[in-house]
C-alpha cells in the first residue's frame, strides 16, 4: 500500500510517512503482554461464571475443588463483599446504579457473571477445579431484548427497579415544535445499531502481585487507562495510591473495551493480598465474549423535518440504549455522546432527544471504537439519505446544501457543542471526484437496465475527539508529558496517555525529534507504568495525539527554554539560540551540543542563575475544547441477486483529521477503523436468545471481518488544522469506523432502491438481502 521512505537521521519528521518504531517487536512476536509475565511463586486463577442470565444462587459447594491437589483457595461472593463495588464513572441525574459486587452474591444477572474464583499452583489444576464447583441455581426468567424489557410485565433485571429503566435523559435545543410545523416533509424511521463484541486480538489479563512486606500492590493489566485504574482499584481495595502500582505491558488491542475497570482487576488483587502470592488470570476468548463489555446496542426512533428544497429544519430522536445488567465505567454516558453528535455536519439547530437506558440480562455495554458517534452518524446519515430519496434529491447535493459553512466557525450546535473548524464540503467533493461520481451514476443507470443491482453510497461524518475539556469528562480531560534528556543527550518522553497500537511511540518521537532537532532514534517514548510515568488520563476517544500531543509539545517548549539557559551558561553569552540539537552563540558561532548541555545540567558545576540541575520538564495540558474531525466515505457495491451477497467494488475514504503527523499511521488507523465499521455493517451480530443465552459465543459464530473480506480502501485526506491545539491535530482513531457503516448501508439501500427498499438494519447479511430481493420480486 503505502511506500515508506527510510527515516532521515534528522530534519523535519512531522508529516513524513515513517514506519512505526514499535512494529518490529510486534510483528516478530517479541513484545511482552500480560500473559508473558512470570513472577516467582505465581499462582493462577480460574473464574466460575454463571451459565444463566438470571438466577438466584441457592448454594455453592466448593468442597471438591478445595480438596483438589494444587488448589490453594476458592473465594465466592461472600468473601469479597467488602471489595468494590466495580465503579461507574457516570453521573446522570436520577441514574440508578446497581451495586456491582466483584463476585455475584445472591443472584446472577447475566451469562458470564463471575460467581467464584479458584486459585491453584498451575492454570490447568485451577481450570479442572473450577469445573468441580457445584453451584445450585434457581433459574429465573430473563430480559434479553431492550425493547421487550421496557414492556409492562417483563422480567425485572434488578428486582428493585421493575421497569428496567436505569435512567431517562432529555436534551433539546432550538424550537423543535416550530421546525416540525414549518416542515414540508417529515421522514420517520426506526434504526438500530446492533450490539457488537469488540474482540481485541489480546483478551484481557491481569497479574496481581501483593508484597506483604511492603504492603504494596503491583497490578499488571491490559488496560487503556493505567492511572485511572490505579486510582479506582486502590479505592476498591482501600489501598493508598502510592502503595498501588499499575503496569500496562503491551496491549493487543483495546478499542474501548479496556477503557474500563473490571471486577477481575480488583478480584486478582484481593486474591493476591489474601494469599501473599502473585496471581495471574488470563481471559479466554469464551470468557472475553461474556465478561468484557460489548458495544453499541441502540434502537433509535428518528424523525427528520425539512423543506421541499432539502433544507433540514430539525430532528427528533428517541433512543433506547441496551445497557446490559450493570454500569461499567462509562456505560450510561455512551448514548449521551450520540445525542451530542446527532446534528452531524449540518446547520439545523432544532433538536430534541430522549434516551431511555434499559437494563437487560446481558453483558454490559460501554465504549467501543467510536463510542456513541458511530450510532449518531449512522442514524443521521441514513435519515439524510432517506430524506434525499423522499425529495428526489441527489444525496451529495442535499449534504452540500446543509453543511455548516467555513465562515460559520466556531459553530455552536443545538446540542451545546462548539465545533472548532471545518471545510465540510472538501472531503465530500474530493471523494466524489476520486470516485468519479457522475460516471458512477451513469454506470448505475446502465447496470440497472441490465438488471444489475449496483449501489453508490455516501456518508459524511463529524466526530468529537480529544476528550476533552475536564468539565466535560468524568475524570479530568487533560493529559501530561515529561521530557527527559539523559547525560548522553538521548531523550525519553513519558506520556500520561497510554497508546496501545495507535503508533504514538513513533508520532511522539517525531514531534520530540523535530522540536529538539535530533533523530527519530534518539527519542524513546514510554508509557504505562504508574511508578515511572506522572499521572495521566489514558488513550481513548481519539485523544492520544490530540491531547497527549500538545502536552508533549508544551513540555518540549519548556525544555528548550531550559536548554537555552544552560546554553547561555555554557557559552558565556546571553545571545544564544537552540537549533538543530545544539545551542549556538549568535555572536561567536560557538556551540554546545544537547549532550553537553544535558551533561552540564547533571554535573551541575555551572548552574544558570535560578536554574535547578537536571534536564527534565513536565507539562499537564488542559484542552480548551474538543476537536471535531470530519470526512466523507464513498462506497460502490454490487449485489448478487441470486444469493444476496454484497460485493464492495470501491471504497473511497477522505478523512480530515487536522494536521497529519504521520500519513502511514493515519492510513493504518483509517483502514483498521473501516474494517471494524465494515464488521458492523455486514457481518457482526451479537445474538442473545430470549433466555439471555449468548448464541454467538465464539469466533466460530461471531463474524469479525478477516483480511480476505476487506475491500481495497482508497484512503485520502484533506487537512484543516484545529485551532484548539498548537499541533493543529484533531484525532483519527475512530474516524474509519464512524464513516464506514452508513456509507456501506447507504450504498446497499441505493442498490436495492429500485425494489422499493428504503432502509435496512445492520448487519446486511446475504440472507437478509436475499429475503428483501425475494419480497421485491413478489411485489
Amino acid at each position, binding site marked *: 500500500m503505502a511506500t515508506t521512505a527510510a527515516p532521515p537521521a534528522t530534519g523535519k519528521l512531522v508529516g513524513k510517512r515513517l514506519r512505526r518504531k514499535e512494529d518490529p517487536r510486534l510483528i516478530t512476536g517479541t513484545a511482552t503482554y500480560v500473559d508473558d509475565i512470570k513472577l516467582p511463586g505465581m499462582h493462577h486463577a480460574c473464574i466460575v461464571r454463571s*451459565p444463566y442470565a438470571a438466577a438466584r444462587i441457592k448454594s455453592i459447594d466448593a468442597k471438591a475443588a478445595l480438596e483438589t491437589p494444587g488448589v490453594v483457595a476458592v473465594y465466592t461472593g461472600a468473601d469479597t463483599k467488602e471489595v468494590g463495588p466495580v465503579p461507574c464513572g457516570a453521573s446522570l441525574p436520577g441514574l440508578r446504579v446497581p451495586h456491582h459486587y466483584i463476585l455475584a452474591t445472591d443472584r446472577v444477572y447475566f451469562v458470564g457473571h463471575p460467581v467464584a474464583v479458584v486459585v491453584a499452583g498451575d492454570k490447568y489444576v485451577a481450570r479442572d477445579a473450577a*469445573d468441580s464447583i457445584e453451584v445450585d441455581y434457581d433459574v429465573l426468567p430473563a430480559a434479553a431484548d431492550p425493547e421487550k424489557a421496557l414492556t409492562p410485565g417483563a422480567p425485572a433485571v434488578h428486582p428493585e427497579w421493575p421497569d428496567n429503566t436505569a435512567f431517562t435523559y432529555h436534551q433539546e435545543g432550538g424550537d423543535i415544535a416550530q421546525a416540525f410545523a414549518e416542515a414540508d416533509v417529515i421522514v420517520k424511521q426506526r434504526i438500530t445499531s446492533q450490539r457488537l463484541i469488540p474482540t481485541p486480538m489480546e483478551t484481557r489479563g491481569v497479574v496481581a502481585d501483593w508484597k506483604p512486606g511492603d504492603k504494596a500492590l503491583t497490578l499488571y493489566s491490559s488496560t487503556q487507562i493505567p492511572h485511572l485504574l490505579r486510582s479506582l482499584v486502590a479505592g476498591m481495595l482501600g489501598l493508598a495510591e502510592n502503595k498501588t502500582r499499575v503496569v500496562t505491558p503491551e496491549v493487543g488491542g483495546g478499542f474501548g473495551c479496556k477503557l474500563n475497570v473490571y471486577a477481575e482487576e480488583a478480584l486478582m488483587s484481593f486474591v493476591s493480598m489474601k494469599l501473599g502470592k502473585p496471581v495471574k488470570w488470563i481471559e479466554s476468548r*469464551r470468557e472475553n465474549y*461474556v465478561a468484557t463489555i460489548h458495544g453499541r446496542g441502540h434502537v433509535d426512533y428518528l424523525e427528520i423535518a425539512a423543506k421541499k428544497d432539502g433544507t433540514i429544519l430539525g430532528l427528533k430522536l428517541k433512543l433506547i440504549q441496551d445497557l446490559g445488567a450493570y454500569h461499567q465505567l462509562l456505560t450510561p454516558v455512551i448514548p449521551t455522546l450520540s445525542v451530542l453528535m446527532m446534528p452531524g455536519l449540518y446547520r439545523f439547530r432544532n433538536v430534541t432527544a430522549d434516551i431511555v437506558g434499559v437494563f437487560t440480562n446481558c453483558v454490559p455495554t460501554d465504549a467501543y471504537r467510536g463510542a456513541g458517534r458511530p450510532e449518531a452518524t449512522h442514524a443521521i446519515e441514513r435519515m439524510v439519505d432517506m430524506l434525499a430519496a423522499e425529495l428526489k434529491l441527489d444525496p451529495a447535493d442535499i449534504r452540500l446544501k446543509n453543511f455548516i459553512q467555513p465562515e460559520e466557525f466556531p459553530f455552536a450546535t443545538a446540542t451545546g457543542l462548539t465545533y472548532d473548524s471545518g471545510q465540510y464540503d472538501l472531503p465530500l467533493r474530493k471523494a466524489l471526484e476520486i470516485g468519479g461520481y457522475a460516471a458512477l451514476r451513469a454506470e448505475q443507470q446502465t447496470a440497472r437496465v441490465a438488471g444489475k443491482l449496483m449501489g453508490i453510497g455516501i456518508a459524511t461524518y463529524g466526530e468529537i475527539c480529544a476528550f476533552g475539556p475536564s468539565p466535560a469528562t468524568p475524570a479530568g480531560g487533560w493529559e501530561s508529558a515529561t521530557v527527559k534528556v539523559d547525560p548522553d543527550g538521548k531523550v525519553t518522553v513519558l506520556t500520561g496517555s497510554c497508546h496501545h497500537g495507535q503508533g504514538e511511540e513513533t508520532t511522539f518521537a517525531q514531534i520530540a525529534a523535530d522540536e529538539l532537532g535530533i533523530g527519530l532514534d534518539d527519542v524513546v517514548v514510554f508509557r504505562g507504568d504508574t511508578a515511572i510515568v506522572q499521572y495521566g488520563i489514558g488513550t481513548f476517544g481519539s485523544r492520544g495525539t490530540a491531547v497527549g500531543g500538545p502536552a508533549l509539545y508544551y513540555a518540549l517548549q519548556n525544555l528548550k527554554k531550559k536548554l537555552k539557559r544552560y546554553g547561555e551558561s555554557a557559552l558565556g553569552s546571553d545571545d544564544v539560540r537552540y537549533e538543530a540539537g545544539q545551542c549556538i552563540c549568535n555572536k561567536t558561532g560557538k556551540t554546545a551540543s544537547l549532550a553537553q548541555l544535558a551533561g552540564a545540567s547533571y554535573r551541575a558545576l555551572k548552574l544558570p542563575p535560578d536554574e535547578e540541575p537536571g534536564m527534565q520538564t513536565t507539562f499537564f495540558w488542559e484542552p480548551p475544547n474538543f476537536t471535531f474531525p470530519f470526512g466523507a466515505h464513498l462506497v460502490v457495491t454490487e449485489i448478487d441477486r441470486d444469493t444476496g451477497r454484497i460485493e464492495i467494488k470501491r471504497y473511497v475514504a477522505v478523512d480530515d483529521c487536522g494536521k497529519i503527523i504521520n500519513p502511514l499511521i493515519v492510513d493504518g488507523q483509517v483502514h483498521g477503523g473501516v474494517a471494524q465499521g465494515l464488521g458492523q455493517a455486514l457481518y457482526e451480530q451479537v445474538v442473545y436468545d430470549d433466555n439471555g*443465552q*449468548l448464541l454467538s*459465543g465464539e469466533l466460530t*459464530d461471531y463474524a469479525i471481518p478477516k483480511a480476505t473480506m476487506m475491500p481495497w480502501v482508497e484512503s485520502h485526506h484533506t487537512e484543516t488544522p484545529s485551532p484548539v491545539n498548537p499541533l493543529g491535530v484533531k484525532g483519527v482513531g475512530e474516524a474509519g469506523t464512524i464513516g464506514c457503516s452508513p456509507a456501506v448501508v447507504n450504498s446497499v439501500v441505493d442498490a436495492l432502491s429500485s425494489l422499493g427498499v428504503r432502509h435496512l438494519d445492520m448487519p446486511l447479511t446475504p440472507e437478509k438481502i436475499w429475503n428483501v430481493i425475494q419480497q421485491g420480486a413478489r411485489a
Partner: protein
Amino acid sequence: MKIAGTQTLPLSRECAYRAMQNPDVLVQCMPGCESLEATGAQEYAMKMKMALAAISGQFQGKVKIADAAPPERFKLIVEGTGKIGFMKGEGALELTEAGEASTQVTYEGDVQVGGTIAAVGQRLIDTTAKMMIRKFFDKLVEVTAGMR
C-alpha cells in the same frame, strides 16, 4: 429453537400412546438415557449420557408428562443440566389414526439450550436436535415392534 415434525408408527393409537408413556420404553428410546426413576405421577428423574462422536457429556434432569389426554395427545417435558450446558425441551405430541395399526405422531415444540453447547455449538444444535428426535422414533419403532 422450534422443532416440529411427523412420524408414523406401525402401532395402533392406543398402543402407541401407551408405549410413549411407559418409562421402560422411554428409557430405551431417548438417546443416551441411562435411567428414569419415578419421582411423582408421570414425573421421572433422568440420567443421560450424550455421546455424539467426540462430543460427550453427562446430564441430569427430569422427564415429565403433562396435559395427558389419552390416546390423543400429551406434553413431554425434558430437562437436563450438565457441565457442558443445559437443555429444556417441551413438546406437544398428537396422535392420529392412520389406518389399522398405524398411527401418525405430530410433534411441535420448543427446545432451549444454554451453556457451552449453546454458545459454541450453533452449527450443530439444530442438526443434533433433529437427529436425536429421529433416533427416538427409530428406536421407538424397534422397541415396540413386538408390542402390537
